[in-house]
């Protein structure tokens, strides 16, 4: 966590320096081998007088955060080393403090999205952390199958480093939540971010990820809703929106209702709108074609072009669907029925998969 600090200080401090934590771990050090400071660590931890001075070092004690204690050491090779030590200690203290503040805020938001905090407590913490309640936000859930030892979090932190008011939260399983502030075009911004993070994670770590984008919310208390909708999008998005790795809650449409129905209800509904046997007989080529036809907003020319099909072939396939199912997917109403039936059927498959 202190590496950026070390980078900054290395540029200005001409002699050895470093930070030790209260357990005696050397967190950063300008001298990789630490040969001069290691023998002093025990003395530092047990000393009661600060700044402490040895033959070659001065050491200060910092308490940036709650009960955590750190020590800053500086080689006495600079002029006015006492003053320099004081200045560097203040810098370090601020650095650590802001790190923990951010960490605390993330911790707080994590309890908010998981509904593990009372309203009263939430209000209190919001004001102490200076988190603005009146702000549009959107939650992204990043789902993967593998534990990555914080690599994923590190990547996201560095990727979105410019967005100081956004938070990256690691959950207990392998998943990560990204809370974004976004005023205009929140969903588009979220999709852009999702594209960037998927490409980066897949390229750097070679693990597949999917992202669920939750609903846009306008206050901190509703973040849990946004998180839940992002979760739902992750869960069922793949059933209703094929070949994507970004699933947006607002695009799930009737998928949300379908996912709330019981199996029996689904079967009943399916029977009501369509002859299931005929429907199941449609071959893959037809299904594939109709999917693309829907993706291209029922535009025959566009679909034919994208699939590199002759227009007549496409029309022929659409007619075949009409013959087999009685649905003319060129018409909006029939297209809707077909799509719904298809969604219900896929969802039922999913339920079967899970048993």
């Amino acid at each position, binding site marked *: 966590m202190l590496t950026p600090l070390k980078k900054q200080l290395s540029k200005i401090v001409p002699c050895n320096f470093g930070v030790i934590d209260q357990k005696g771990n050397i967190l950063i050090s300008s001298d990789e081998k630490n040969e001069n400071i290691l023998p002093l660590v025990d003395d530092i931890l047990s000393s009661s007088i600060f700044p402490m001075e040895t033959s070659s070092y001065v050491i200060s004690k910092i308490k940036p955060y709650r009960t955590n204690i750190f020590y800053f050491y500086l080689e006495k090779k600079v002029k006015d080393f006492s003053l320099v030590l004081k200045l560097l200690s203040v810098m370090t203290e601020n650095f650590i403090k802001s790190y923990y503040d951010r960490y605390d805020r993330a911790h707080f938001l994590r309890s908010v999205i998981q509904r593990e905090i009372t309203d009263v407590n939430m209000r209190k913490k919001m004001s102490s952390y200076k988190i603005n309640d009146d702000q549009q936000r959107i939650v992204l859930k990043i789902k993967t199958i593998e534990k990555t030892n914080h690599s994923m979090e590190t990547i996201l932190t560095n990727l979105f480093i410019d967005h100081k008011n956004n938070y990256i939260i690691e959950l207990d399983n392998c998943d990560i939540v990204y809370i974004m502030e976004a005023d205009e075009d929140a969903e588009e911004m979220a999709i852009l971010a999702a594209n*960037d993070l998927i490409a980066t994670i897949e390229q750097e770590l070679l*693990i597949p990820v999917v992202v669920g984008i939750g609903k846009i919310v306008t206050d901190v208390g509703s973040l849990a809703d946004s998180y839940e909708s992002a979760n739902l999008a992750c869960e069922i998005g793949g059933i209703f929106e094929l070949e994507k790795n970004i699933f947006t809650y607002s695009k799930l449409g009737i998928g949300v209702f379908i996912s709330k129905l019981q199996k029996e209800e689904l079967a009943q509904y399916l029977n009501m709108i369509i002859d299931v046997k005929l429907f199941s007989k449609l071959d893959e080529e037809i299904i594939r074609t109709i999917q693309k036809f829907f993706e291209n907003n029922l535009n025959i020319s566009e679909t034919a072009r994208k699939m590199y099909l002759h227009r007549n072939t496409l029309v022929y396939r659409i007619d075949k669907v009409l013959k087999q199912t009685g649905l003319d997917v060129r018409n909006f109403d029939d297209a809707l029925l077909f799509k719904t039936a298809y969604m219900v059927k896929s969802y039922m498959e999913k339920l079967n*998969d899970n048993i």
Partner: protein
Amino acid sequence: MAKVVVKNVYKKYEPSRGGITAVSDFNLSIEDKEFLVLLGPSGCGKTTTLRMIAGLEDITAGEIYIGDKLVNDVQPKDRDIAMVFQNYALYPHMSVFDNMAFGLKLRKTPKDEIKKRVHEAARILEIEHLLDRKPKALSGGQRQRVALGRAIVREPKVFLMDEPLSNLDAKLRGQMRVELIKLHQRLQTTIIYVTHDQVEAMTMGTRIVCMRLGFIQQVDNPQVMYDYPANVYVAGFIGTPQMNFADAKIRDDGKNVYIIVGNSTIKLPESRMKNILGKGFDGREVIMGIRPEALHDEQVYIDSLPDSTVNAEVEVVEMLGPEALVYCVVEGTNMIARFKPNTKARHGDVIKVAIDTERLHIFDKDTEKALFRD
């Protein structure tokens, strides 16, 4: 550096995800150091194939080998591959050096090694002078190179690239195409490259795999694929403007083979006859294919190809500078001819057009397969 072998690979997505068989019986042996292009329209299974080779997608059946090792059960990160996508993002606060080094740091590569690899990659990409810059201070092309650099520093045996240029504007895309060809020469590594753009495929690939609906249609080097397409689909997909097609019929009089299209009879030359003559094709319905540049309006051709000269009604003449595209109707079929820019053809004319029969294609009407392939 490695060979990649894909054996009888299938991919069927789960029923709850549409249940589509995205890739069927894919068989291919990709040579070490090859620049192999997977080409085909949207949805034909290119990305799925690439992700299966990477291990980012499970395979339903079959085997994949990278450098002699069966990798079916090997994690992507242990497959010695690197991916490059059309999307990429750079870490905004990091220098170019750190952007390239970051992945290696995550994998705990020793510092000296990182330094060596990043400098080597930067040298190959000719961005050594940019190593201290932040992404903000780079041009689009330079950023794309940094993204490539990230893949290069992994020193993979195989690069897997999924339409890496498709987000770029036309000019930059053209430049990067050349860059990638150079890069391949310098890296001396196997590259598997996915695109739907036949120009990219033709210019970059040492071999092209043309796909359709999850099936391989043809695997050949670009020129062979252009000159001898295996079927109507490949013939139409490769080349712009597209190959012209017309329904036709074969006549075999025992000595010669003729193609009858409308009221015209075209005599086939020796080279195009050999798989047809005396093989029982007389009367067979076929699809005739002619590339726009195999049509000629110059007198020398018309004089020397009397057996394959037809009439054409000119509809539109598009002057393009180095050439003219002439839209015309030949025996009731719309065709495009690529003539010299000094063509005299004008809208409304009926002109004589000589067909270069050495470059005529004939496909079976039912199977759409080429009747002859050398």
